[in-house]
């Protein structure tokens, strides 16, 4: 019996070691990716704080409850001569206590969660409104109040590499699956409201660093808002998170956050281009959804 257990341990360690050795080829290690990003918006930071609070509460409960159980497993085993106390079947006082304590812990978690929820669902006083429309398989972005509108689809190199047996090593493609042809551009330090909808099936627009995930549903316009920290310009990447058909994995979200000055310059340039009808004419035609009416 003892030998059997040692054998199992040996097999496990060998396999784990094999697993650890295998992926050494990657440029940047993924081993450290084990937690939610703190993110770069007011929303994402509050969510991260709540997440970590909930995590440590769970760890605390686990230490106590698992500790008690492990104590029993070690010290109350028959092989150590433990004799069962068969009279211990019920204890009202203890049972009330272990009903009440979880209630208190839950209230302590629910209050901050409710507060944050109400705060981050405040969509008023947005300084920039952008319509986000999902389709199979990409996103259309329209800057409300301007003629600027374009379609954002999976970047060319990723699109080549992701074909079955493409022969292209995904490691050789920068930001494989997380690049697009036309990223969304937003100003930092500005409250941005997204109006999210869809023209065919349900999609979900997600940028982990923003703490923003909203379903894009045909027939509905969902609102969500966020402000990127003024000192955190950069490129932020996410993906569709609602199964939307064959190419669900291939409609990433890429957002460039730039300073407000750069943003106005970019917007002016886009407007000018849009007026000339160059560059964006194809996309300007607005999203024509692929015909999705089911055929029997």
């Amino acid at each position: 019996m003892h030998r059997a257990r040692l054998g199992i341990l040996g097999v496990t360690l060998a396999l784990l070691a094999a697993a650890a050795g295998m992926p050494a080829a990657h440029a940047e290690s993924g081993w450290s990716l084990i937690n939610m990003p703190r993110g770069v918006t007011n929303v994402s930071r509050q969510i991260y704080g709540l997440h970590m609070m909930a995590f440590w509460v769970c760890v605390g409960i686990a230490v106590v409850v698992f500790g008690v159980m492990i104590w029993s497993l070690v010290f109350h085993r028959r092989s150590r001569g433990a004799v069962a106390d068969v009279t211990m079947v019920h204890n009202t006082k203890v049972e009330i206590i272990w009903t009440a304590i979880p209630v208190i812990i839950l209230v302590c978690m629910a209050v901050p969660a409710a507060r944050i929820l109400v705060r981050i669902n405040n969509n008023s006083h947005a300084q920039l409104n952008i319509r986000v429309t999902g389709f199979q398989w990409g996103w259309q972005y329209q800057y409300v109040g301007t003629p600027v509108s374009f379609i954002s689809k999976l970047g060319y190199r990723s699109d080549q590499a992701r074909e079955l047996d493409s022969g292209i090593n995904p490691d050789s493609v920068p930001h494989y699956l997380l690049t697009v042809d036309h990223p969304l551009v937003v100003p930092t330090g500005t409250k941005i409201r997204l109006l999210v909808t869809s023209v065919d099936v349900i999609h979900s627009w997600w940028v982990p660093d923003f703490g923003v995930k909203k379903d894009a549903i045909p027939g509905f316009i969902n609102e969500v808002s966020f402000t990127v920290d003024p000192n955190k310009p950069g490129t932020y990447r996410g993906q569709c998170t609602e199964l939307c058909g064959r190419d669900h994995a291939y409609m990433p979200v890429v957002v460039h956050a730039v300073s407000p000055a750069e943003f106005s310059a970019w917007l002016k340039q886009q407007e000018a281009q849009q007026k000339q009808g160059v560059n964006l004419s194809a996309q300007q035609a607005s999203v024509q959804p692929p015909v999705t009416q089911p055929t029997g």
Partner: protein
Amino acid sequence: MAEPHVETTAHADHEHMPHGWRRWVFATNHKDIGTMYLIASCVMFFIGGAAAMVIRAELFKPGMQLVDPGVFNSLTTLHGLIMIFGAIMPAWVGLANWMIPLQIGAPDMALPRLNNLSFWILPFAFSLLIATFFVPGSAPAGGWTMYPPLTLQFGDSFPMLIFAIHLMGISSILGAINVIVTIMNMRAPGMTLLRMPLFVWTWLITAFLLIAVMPVLAGAVTMMLTDHFFGTSFFNAAGGGDPVMFQHIFWFFGHPEVYIMILPAFGVISEIIPTFSRKPLFGYEAMVYATASIAFLSFIVWAHHMFTVGLPVSAQLFFMFSTMLIAVPTGVKVFNWAATMWKGSLSFEPPMLFAVAFLFLFSIGGFSGLMLALVPADYQYHGTYFVVAHFHYVLVTGAAFAIMGAVYYWLPKWSGRMYDMALAKWHFWLSTIFVNVLFFPQHFLGLAGMPRRTPDYAVQFTDWNQVSSIGGFAFGLSQLLLPYIVWKCVRSGKRVEGNKAWEGAHGLEWELPSPPPFHSWTVPPSEALIARGAEH
């Protein structure tokens, strides 16, 4: 004391027992039907598992190596449907068939022919479902949740999917009716409700949940069927319909469904832990009430699956609070199990090993569940591998581990033979180690930003995906031990001496010989026997 009457019934049984294929096709005996359910469940477990193996193989590396993304989506969809409706639920119905009459002192289930029907619907339902892989277009690939409008896009497989769901629903409802009628009418005199073993209690509550929600699922898929074929617009926004309404209806079924899969597990754990702690269950009545509270709460938490669809803030608050409340009765259960082991005299035979692993690993699923209940945090977790990790901890190390524990607990009773204990311990340790290698890293993947239901991923997710896949292959392979152990036990296991296979076992099933006679309790057990079994 049970010996003399058993010999006479065993003789009488012989005359009534049909032989050959008739015994199975025309089966009305609860044990035969229970056995068929368990075998069917095992077959479906391996079919669903094979789908999971392909999924994990494709996810071993970024880039596409094995299957088309559409096929991948079909595999995740079928894996979910097969494991839920084909593996977990039939296993519980099989255990209910086998154990409820034995445990309440009844000769058989109340409605034996209905019982036969409810089983024999299943092979047809699952043939239909699996046949969707071979029709033009593609197999259903919209996820087991079948959200429209996506699911409406599938061709010939769509009506087959709907019909298969209807059949599974009918089977479940018939099974549930049988369980309720049996428990309400067939208890031996003296077997009062609060003397029933917890497995019977949890199944009684589960059966009510089934009757309440399976028709809701049937309604939802029927509305989708008429949207597809008869021009209605229940879920079609272009026709004035509402795609979100499907999600409300689906999860009104779906959340109680989760408890349908886990409540009987609570029952099994409440049988196994006292036996191997050699101590009565702590807080029996609290366990019953906690089970009932969980069942009630399961009806008012459904929208926690939908926090990102754009519900009003007030609705999100309500569903967050109601969901968090579930932690209270669930906590009571875990504390009661811990208190049952406290000051016990523990030994670690395979059923107990699975029960102890259940306590720890199901609790981990509970912790991630609590985190998921917090709406702002759920905005980040929703639709990612964090959710996948959560529900696999609850359903694999929760429900499936409890089923395996139950099989190892009652197999000696069913077969009259003891299985290879060392091999069963191998099965346990391999399963427990690799199920964690398989699912624990998925928490990391989800938090780091990997969406679920994707056949491909950004390269930074490679490392943990490879660990997860290796765990998956090893876990999948180790499951082959289970049917081998059972087969070997039934063929050539050592005969069990006496009625009790386990020294600490209590309950009426342990007052019958092993294996029990073909017709279980032809004479009701005496009050004394019932009282002895119900010492809690």
